[in-house]
């Protein structure tokens, strides 16, 4: 096999990447109350405790509401940005796109603290709406990137054919472009949903007294008794993320296949 040494290194590297995640289910099903070896025995009681926990259910409800709203808003804004940047030339395009992509590289602490200061001085009450505001902002660049790939691989002659056949701008968009970029839209929705579901810093500063799953987890980490339940919750979160990402990846590839472009791989 080609590149033996490199391949071995890459596999070791993958193991290092996955090590913490692989430990998660091991301890979520371990009956010992301390997270340490040797393992005690198999149990599902932590999962049962998790399901029976009221504040955790409230956190889950909040997280889902936030993630659904933020992913829809971010994807809508992303459609505008992606369509504008792939189809049109306009003045100050570089700086404008740079500004829209900026949350990708700006430390989250800066984004959340500055937003918090402004909201507090405006007298806005902190609740899940303010978290949605922040999450939409940080999901927008990701949505824009995913959707730009989708819009980029569009053949412009399809759109022109629709105009020639008497469609208006809007109906051409709805009947021709939208179905072709639909896989990209679904992929962007799922991606933003996953980002929002896992996001901690913005939720921590902007949620006020409303818990989300990550902030709930953070608040429970101080209590050793709660750790096994948190491991169970973590397992559920990770499994959910992986399923969502796999579906997102499936749609992304299908979108590329649909427009006949070559797969360049990867989300970023």
């Amino acid at each position: 096999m080609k590149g033996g040494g490199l391949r071995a290194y890459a596999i070791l590297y993958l193991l290092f990447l996955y090590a913490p995640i692989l430990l998660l289910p091991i301890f979520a099903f371990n009956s010992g109350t301390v997270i340490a070896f040797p393992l005690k025995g198999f149990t599902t009681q932590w999962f049962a405790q998790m399901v029976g926990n009221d504040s955790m259910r409230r956190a889950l409800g909040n997280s889902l509401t936030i993630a659904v709203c933020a992913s829809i808003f971010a994807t809508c804004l992303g459609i505008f940005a992606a369509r504008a940047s792939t189809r049109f030339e306009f003045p100050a395009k570089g700086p404008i796109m740079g500004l829209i992509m900026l949350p990708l590289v700006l430390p989250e602490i800066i984004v959340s603290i500055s937003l918090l200061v402004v909201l507090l001085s405006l007298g806005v009450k902190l609740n899940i709406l303010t978290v949605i505001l922040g999450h939409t902002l940080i999901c927008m660049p990701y949505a824009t990137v995913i959707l730009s790939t989708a819009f980029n691989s569009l053949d412009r002659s399809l759109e022109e054919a629709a105009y020639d056949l008497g469609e208006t701008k809007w109906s051409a968009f709805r009947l021709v472009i939208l179905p072709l970029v639909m896989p990209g839209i679904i992929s962007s929705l799922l991606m933003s949903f996953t980002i929002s579901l896992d996001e901690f810093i913005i939720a921590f500063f902007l949620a006020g007294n409303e818990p989300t799953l990550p902030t709930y987890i953070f608040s429970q980490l101080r209590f050793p008794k709660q750790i096994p339940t948190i491991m169970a919750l973590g397992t559920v979160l990770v499994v959910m993320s992986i399923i969502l990402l796999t579906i997102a990846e499936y749609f992304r590839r299908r979108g590329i296949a649909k427009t006949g472009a070559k797969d360049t791989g990867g989300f970023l």
Partner: protein
Amino acid sequence: MASGNRSQSVQGLTLISPPLAYALLVMAAPLLTILAYSFLKDGYLTVVREFTLENYRAVWTDPIVRTIMLRSLGVAALVTLVTVVLAFPVAYFLSFVVSPSRKSMWLFLITIPFWTSYLIRVFLWKVILGYNGVVNSGLKTLGIIEQPLSFLLYNVNSMVITLAHAYAPFAILPIFIALEKIDRSLLEAGRDLGESRAMTFWRVTLPLAMPGVVAAALIVFIPTIGDYVTPALIGGGKIPMIANLIQSQMLDLDNRPLGSALAVTAMLIVAVFSLIFVALNRRFLKVRQ
């Protein structure tokens, strides 16, 4: 044709305006507010509208701030170095060894851990490295050590391990993209002209991959320096970084002008370091050409 261009601009600008307005309102305006606050005076629980440079003087002369700032820079630099050096061979493997049809599967495998909850991953490192953690209890069970190793948790090393793990996929992707762009015939040319494999790598592949390496370094360095969770969990709150300091000034002590000055200073330092890095690289590339 001119009118065509003009209508293009109008249409483009109309389309871009909703996301642009959102970015301006939710990001740019708050950042400008922070900038304005940093020049104002702090009254008790309020902000006095009076211009002053006092906050910056306080930030730049305070030894505690300096220590924490230097620590943040040191940790971020070390994490960047470790991630980029460890990631380069993986990116090289992906680009040059893996067959094209399997590349997206490998990329997918590498990005999955990045998309799973950051908080849980950081916490898991605490569980792994802790005094009674997975490493220590595992080694004890195997009879390799008798006493738990105490150097693993609550220090800078453990923060570097955790952060390097968290940002690993960030480093691989830009390098991979740069390597993918390299025209393979250049490498053949290098070999044909009598260069050894190592020399071809050193004189052709590496310089061409440098833009990717720079992008990777920046994309790791910037979020690492502003990281909040890892110092709070892995550092046990005892070795704060700049994000923790900003948070405590802004919220716990409610000194918004000083906190703002800290945030602006941190952003300036990050910007300066990034520019130096990009400039150095440009010079490096010019010399090699």
